[in-house]
């Protein structure tokens, strides 16, 4: 399989188009013949990170990179950053707005769901600058 790189811009507050990037990523992986179980894990994790960009960030992008050994999803945003990553990783902890919560988001399960579904999960954040999440899925 030749390497594939795709970039998906994600707009802050774009609830009506939420999930489009993740759905496209899922279609690409299916077409590449990636194992169905891996595709499902990537779909859940990429949806969660896409929603985090929509709910919490000032906008950003998702990057898909596929090679012979792994699927890599990288999320990079333009802020505002996470002051306490350990707290943000805790199940049930959320800073989502009331608007987001009224749609069923903000359960405080997004980051834990990403970590559980990915084979490798890394998060770095610089308050005032932005957050980067990198998830690898072995294939």
């Amino acid at each position: 399989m030749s390497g594939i790189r795709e970039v998906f811009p994600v707009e802050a507050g774009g609830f009506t188009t939420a999930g489009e990037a993740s759905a496209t990523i899922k279609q690409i992986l299916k077409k590449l013949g990636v194992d169905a179980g891996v595709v499902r894990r990537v779909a859940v994790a990429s949806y969660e990170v896409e929603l985090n960009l929509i709910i919490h960030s000032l906008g950003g992008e998702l990057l898909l990179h596929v090679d012979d050994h792994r699927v890599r999803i990288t999320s990079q945003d333009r802020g505002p950053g996470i002051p306490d990553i350990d707290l943000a990783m805790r199940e049930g902890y959320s800073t989502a707005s009331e608007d987001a919560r009224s749609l069923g988001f903000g359960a405080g399960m997004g980051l834990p769901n990403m970590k559980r579904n990915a084979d490798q999960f890394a998060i770095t954040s610089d308050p005032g600058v932005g957050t980067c999440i990198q998830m690898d899925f072995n294939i």
Partner: protein
Amino acid sequence: MTLAQMMEITGAELLVPGVPLDKEISAGYSCDLLSWVMGREQPGMAWITVQTHLNVIAVAELIEAACVILADCSQVDSAMLQRARDDGFALFASKHDAFTLGGMLYAAGLRTTERP
């Protein structure tokens, strides 16, 4: 259990004409928090929720749910309905609440999705 059998058991109304009703339901889960549902996803699941907006269909398709059953449903969001019809996704509405729907399906043999 097929979608047709689920309809017979619960009386749920199909909102998307033409959806194949011989599709199998593997398990059921009832929750209104989207991340909880994704944490308990299982292919072919029936998802019972009161949430009526576009993002429910987006999540249901991503996790390959067999159907969404809207509980306590008197009115369906038009954008949600359009999305389900465009995609041919099996969306149902029921006057029953989520507890009752779950009870009916459990009594008929359907079980909850597996814990991760």
